[in-house]
Structures are given as C-alpha cells and as structure tokens.
C-alpha cells in the first residue's frame, strides 16, 4: 500500500466534495445522475471517473450534515434521490473555497518561483 496513492485519493476526494457542494449550491437540488452529468460537462475529458465514484462523496457529505437527500419524482416520473445543500453545507463551501484558493495560489507561487 503506497502512501502516494492514498494521498492522491485524498486530494481527489477533497476536490470532489468541493465540486459537489458547488454544483448543488449553484444549481439547486440534484440527483446523483444529474450531478455526474454536470461533472462530465465541466471536466475536459468526459468519463474520466466512473459515475459510481460519486457515492462515497455523497455519503460523506450527508454524514457531515452538509447535504441532505430526499426521494422525489423526476420530470419523467422516475424515482430519484435528490440532494440539496444545507445551511452548514453553504458555510462549509465558503470555507473550503477560500481554503482552496489560498492553497492554489500558494502552489502557483511556489511553482512559479521554482521555475
């Protein structure tokens, strides 16, 4: 078990959580499929990640109380679990976003000065 691999998953998870929160904050309640579609839309390479990968992120966010899932009908009358962002979720998104920005700018600076 290499620690490098674990770190990369860790980073990916954090990023994924942030993207999910952001998507729910801007687009309102979404089900997992719509979220996955949205993700593919944003990513440059569609299908870079399996749609199943979303589920751990969803359960994590739900357990943290940042999103809440409810079963509803879609416009085509299918069952789907819609996730909506909660108030603590919005606050967390704000925190995570600014943290992400700080981190990104720091890494940017470092990369620039090293280059």
């Amino acid at each position, binding site marked *: 078990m290499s620690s490098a691999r674990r770190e990369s998953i860790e980073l990916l998870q954090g990023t994924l959580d942030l993207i999910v929160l952001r998507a729910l904050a801007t687009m309102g309640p979404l*089900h997992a499929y719509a979220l*996955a579609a949205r993700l593919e839309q944003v990513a440059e390479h569609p299908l870079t990640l399996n749609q199943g990968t979303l589920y751990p992120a969803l359960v994590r966010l739900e357990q943290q109380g940042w999103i809440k899932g409810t079963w509803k009908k879609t416009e085509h009358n*299918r069952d789907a679990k819609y996730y909506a962002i909660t108030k*603590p979720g919005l606050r967390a998104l704000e925190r995570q976003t600014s943290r992400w920005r700080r981190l990104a700018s720091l890494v940017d600076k470092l990369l620039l000065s090293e280059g």
Partner: protein
Amino acid sequence: MASLRRFFLRLLSVIRPGRSEPDLAREIAAHLTLLQDELERRGMTPDEARLAARRAFGGIEQAKERHRDARSFVWLDDARRDLKYALRLLRRSPVFTFTAATSLATGIGASITVFTAVNTLLLRTAPGVADADQLVDINRTTGEIGVQPILYSQYLEIRERATRLQHVYAYGLNLTPMSLTVETGQSGAEPVFASVVTTNYFAALGVGPAVGRVFAERDAESVVVLSHRFWTRRFNADPAVVGTALRLTDRLFTVVGVARKEFHGNTVLAPDVWVPFDQSRPLDIGLVGARLRPGVSMAEASAEIEMIGKTLTGDPAPPGFGDPEARRRHMGLSVSRSSPIPTGVRILVGGFLALLTAIVTLVLVIACTNVAGVLLARAAARRREVAVRLAMGVGRARLVRQLLTETILLFLMGGAAGLVLSRVMSALVLRMLPAFPLPADVSLTQDARVVAFALGVSFVAAVLSGLAPALHASNTDVGSILKAHEHGPASRLRLLHAFVVSEVALSVLLVVVGGLLARALGRAGSVDQGFDPRGVDVASLDLSLAGYTTANGTAFMRGLATRVRQLPDVESAALAFATPSAGLMGFMLTVPGAADAQGAPLQAVGNIVSPGYLPAMRIPIVAGRDFSDADSPTAEPVAILGEGAVRRFWPGISNADALGRTIAVQPFLIDTSTRRRPTGAAARVVGVASDLVRVRMGDSPRPFVYLPLYQRYIPTIKLLARSGSGRRIAGDLRALVKTMEPKLPILSAMALEDEGGPVVTQLRIAAAIAGSLGIVGFLLAAIGIYGVTAYMVARRTREIGIRVALGAGPADIVRMVLGEGMRLVAIGSAIGLVLATGAGRLLVGLLYGVPPIDPITFAASILLFAGVGLAACYVPVRRAVRVDPMGALRCE
C-alpha cells in the same frame, strides 16, 4: 463538529446497518435507469442503453463497497459479524464452552489473585496517602536481607542535609504494645498497639483527620491520634472522645483526633493509635520516609541520599564487634518508592509471591493448552466449512481473525469469570492467614491495575493458545478436502500429542509440588520439627506495660510459672522470649578456641527461656542439665547449646565434653527499658539440647544457644502451657494473669500449632494453592487425554474396522488404543517428574526436612496419573472395541 458528527454516524452504521444498504441499492438502480433513459433518448436500443449505462457507471459492487467504506468502519463491521458468529458457535456447543470457560476462569482467577497480592504488597503505596508517587522510603543498605534501623540522630542528620526531599519523617517498624487501663470498671488492662512516629508523619503522608486533628509539627509529647478502626471498635465512633484523656501504660495522653478511614498506616501493620516519638519511647527499629520536592526526580533524590549515606555519622559500635570497614558498609543509604513492605524484606515477600506466581502460571498454561487442544480438534471438524469459505475467496488473514475472535471471546468470558472468582479466592487465602500477633492490614482490593491485568492476561493467553489452532485450520488445501472425506494431516495429530504431553507434564509438576508442600506442612505441625507443638497454648506479655523492671520482674515471672503449673489440665508450663517456631533472637557469640573463627564473633540464634522450657516443649536434652531456679542473676552465668553449635565450635568433641566450656554471648536486641544493648557476658555451657529442624535446614545451620530467663531478664515474654487433656487453656491463662496483675494485658493468645510463624503461613498458603490447583490441573489433563484418545479412535475407525475384519480380538484393540493414550501419559509424567526434581531443589528451604525427591510424593503422583490416564481412556477404548467392521468400511 461535522467530522465528529460523521464519526458517530459511521459508528452507528456499524451497530445498526439498518436501511442504508437497501436505500443504496435503490439509489443505484434509479441512477442506472435515468442514465439508460437518457441514452435511449439519444437513439440507443434499450439493450445497448442498459449495457452502456453499466459501463458509464463502473463496477456496481465496487461502488457499494466504497460507499460502505465511507459510510461505516468496515473492520469494526467485520469484528461485529465475527463476534455474532463466534457467539452462535459457542452457544451451539455448550459443554465445550462451559468446560473451557471454567478451566480458564480457574487459571485466570488464580493469576489475578496472586497479582492482586503482588499489587497490594509490592506495587502500590499503602492506601489513604496523598500523591503517592512522590512518597519515598529511605533505606539503610547492607547487602543483606532484613530491615536495618536508622538511629534517631541519623534521621535528624538526613532531615537536615537532604535538600531534594521534604517532609522527612520517621516511624517505628514494629508496633509498640501499650496497655489501655480503664479507670472505672473491672475489665482490666487491654492491649493497644501503637505506632511511634515523628510529629510530621501525617503531614508528610498527606493524611487528614476524620474527626479532630492529626499531629502538628510542634505537638507536645502526650497526644495521641486514634485509627479509624480502633475508634469505631473501642469508642463506637463517638466524636466526643476527642479531647479526652487516655491512660496508656504509665502516662496520660490527650486524644487530639482520629485519622481518615482509608488510612491504616504506611506499612502492612495497622496500629490502633499513633503516638509521637520522644525519649521514653525509642524507635528501636526506626525507619525513615520522605516526600520528593516538586520537580525532583527519583534519580536525583537517590544520588543525594547516597552521598549523605557515605558521610553519615555511624552507629556507636558495640564494643569489640565488627571492624570499621564493615561498619561503614552498614551505613549505605538508598531511596525507593514508598511501599507497605519495607525494602529490606521485599525480597522475602517477593520470593514467596514468585513461588505462587509460578504455581498459578502453571495452571494457566495447562488450561490454555487444554483449550488449544480442544480448539484444534474442533478445527478438524470445521475443515469443510473452512475449505468452502476459502474456495469462495475469503482471505486467509480474515479467516484467522475470525477463528481468533472465537477464542478471544472464550478467554474474555473466562477472564471475567476469573475476576469474580478471584474475589472468592482472595477471601479464602485471607482466611488461611493465621491470627496475627499484631494488627495488620492485608485487605486485597481489585483496583484498575488488577482489572487491566485480567484483561491483558486473558487476551495474551487467548492469542497464544488460539493462534496455532487458527493457523492450522486456515492452512487447508481446498481441493483435497472438498473432494475427499479425510481426517486431517498427521502434523495436527502431532501438535495435539504435544499439547497433551505438556499438559500431563505440568500437572504432574503441580501435583508433586503440592504434595511436597503438603508433606512439609504436615511435618511442620508435628513433632518432626524438633519440638512438640500439640496441645500448647501461647500468651504474649510485656511486663514493662505493668511497670515491672529488672528488679521485680523475675520474681513475678517465677510466681506466674508456678501458678500456671497449678491450673487444672496443665501438664507443663514455661516462659520464654520466643516460641520454638517463631521470633527467635539473634546473638553474637565469641567462642574461645572455636574451629572456624579466630576469636571473631559468630552469628547465632537462640532463645531466653525459663527452667522447664525444654521439657515442656519436648526438646530432648542430650547432655548435661536443664536450667534450674538456682541459675539466678547472682549465680554463675550459664548457657545451653544446640548440638549443631557444639559440632561447629569444637569439631570432633562429644556433647558431654562440651559441658563446662565457656562462651561469650551478646544479644542483638536493644533492651527497651535501658535503651542499650546488654553487654556480652561469659557463660558456662551446662547442657546440650537437640536442634530444631528449622535451625538444621539450609546449607550452613546456624549455631543455637539458650540462655536462662531468670538470669537475663527481658520484659517481652511468651507464656507457654501444655494441656494434658486436649482442652484449650488460653482462657484460663487470661483469667490467671488478670487476677495476678490487672494492669498487665495479654497481647495475644493462640495455639502454638497455629502460630507457625511466617514460614508455616507461607507453606500453608502455597500448599493450599498448589494442592487445589493441582486437582484442577489433573482434571484438565484428564480431559486432554480423553480428547486426544477419542480423536485418535475417530480418526482410525476405518483402520480398527479392517483390523477387526482381519481377526483382531477386543484385547488387541484395547491394547492399541490404551497403548497410544498411556504412552502420552508416560512421556508427560516422565518430563513432569524431571521438572519436579528441579522444583523440589528450589523449594528445599520451605520443606521442613522433607527430601526434595520424596519417594512417597513421587510414587503417589505416578500412581495418580496412571489412574487418571486409564480413566480418561475408558470411553474411547470402549468405543473402539465396539467398532462394527462392516459399518466402518462401508461409510468410507
């Protein structure tokens, strides 16, 4: 906050998996449907769309697995499942569960009991003190076993010079007997045991009062603090007693308060009262303790105290004894953590507890081996199940973990039962202790450390005894088992044999040790120890408590002896400093012309006795005469030697020829009335007595000497009276002393057989523990033998069938099965006897002259185990004889 919330939800998910799983399945199904709808709308056929949706989604099972990972703690989830499974398995075989848990409970319980004693006596500080980890004892080190006193002047010097210690206090090792006289009423004098301490004692230990106050640094000398127990017993816990006056021995003391209930003193001795040190109450054996200053480590304090010890003012040396170099060695000082057992004798207590630890460890190992053996046999029965699970892709580590869970559960059950059982065992051991001549605190409490020990022992034992069977069970060749019905590899049988052999060996060891100790105990309570304790009652007196001195004490003693001999049923009576079994006095002897010392003093032990003591104790006088009333202080000083002393001093000289020779004797003891060591005096040998067995034991028997009591007055004496009718006469003795001298309390009264001293007490406890655990051990060994023989018969049913079919008679079959079982018993017993030989040698000091390779004990043990082996083989043999050859061959 959010992560905490998540942690609890994950935990909850382990405990109650609930609806999460179906909900997830539903959500994934919905997800796939939506995806499929979308793809169909883009023009795919439904079949194509379904497959494409699956591809886009990725592995459904993997997604579920990751979801589970994120949702709960998977390892915990596994453990919960293992636990449930293990419980189901254990419930399914209640006999196995019960036997295993019971034997483990016995083994673990016994270990806990001994550990509790170790904890109470050696690891903990006495209960009731504050900040115990800062408390230290300051000890004199001489390199010898025993407690070395620190003189008061030396205490003051240490207190003055030690900068890294504070609250340096001193206390007497022994309790000082005092007599409490009640002015009104006719109850007479009652004994009270006092601890003489410096006035900073309570402050140093951080012990407060329950009522009133404790000593203040500047307290006057005539104050007393009561122990909570004494206050409750004697004054019905009446707070009004504070401020009143008590007459103790010859002086009035003001009661200033009662110490806190939890505090019984800083050693195992539990005094009734504490009185401040002063010139009239010397600390004959003074010990010193202190508290580390804040921020000072043990090592720093040690370094300082060792420095002080090197330059401390020495003892005033007894004239003519010891060279200056030896005296300087005596003055080493060291620091150790405060302990209820003084450092100098910790090794004695530790040695005894080590013996008990060895005994209980043996039982624990036997119990573990037994359970391991049964688990191994069960593993054989579960080979198919294991093979199926392996074939289904369960990891081996996972399987071992699951099999171990079962074992650990079993051991924890045993451990929990053991914890309860050890309370009962502790109570039984405490009941076995003799009546102490001094009040003592020996309560064995189970604190957190004991519980942690119980858990640890159970867990370690479980892993050790469960690992081999679990590895064995999981090490299965899947193909061969699923295909054929076969009874397991030969290596398993060998392991099982090894288990049974070691069980038998350890049980034999245990039974032999128990037998040796029991034989020694039998000898200790009989004439075999060189005197006859049967029917003798002993009462302890301290004549100084009633104000007697050298001037009038002897006359009182003579009168007392005469009056006791006139009591009904009294066959003989005498007075002595010590009984033959306990508390002998140390002497220094100078023997002109002695073989092994050119005029240097020799260490000896002995007793100061009245005329008639030797006949009353039935100690034979082999030459010369007993002391007589004519041996008075004004007459020529005389002595009686033990036979061993004669042989040691003057080799080759007959006992009769030793008579008339002169020796110089000086007792070690400090005379409490004059506070000085009595000076050495020449004495003429008038008699030679047979030695006590206790004195004969060991590598170099110590020379023994008797001195006449009426010539060398000592106030602390034992009154010994032998009853001719078997009736106990302790009550008569009490009544007589009370009529002769109401101010004189009887400090203790007991049967001489019960006194025994520390050696017999240790022997009694060790014999009882080894004996009762020996029974458990051989029952477990019997179960082990039965198990392996039965397994062997089951495994070889087919072979037996063939043999019978080929014409083997029942006798052949019996011989075959019995031979196998008894071979293990024989090998085990042989190993056990070899081990017992070694153990016997280690125990020789406790055995009262029973030879370590005692033929009776050894022969009895061999017979016992042969019988056990035969009994254990009975059922399997019967089963083997009844094997139906046709049936056995057909079922394959």
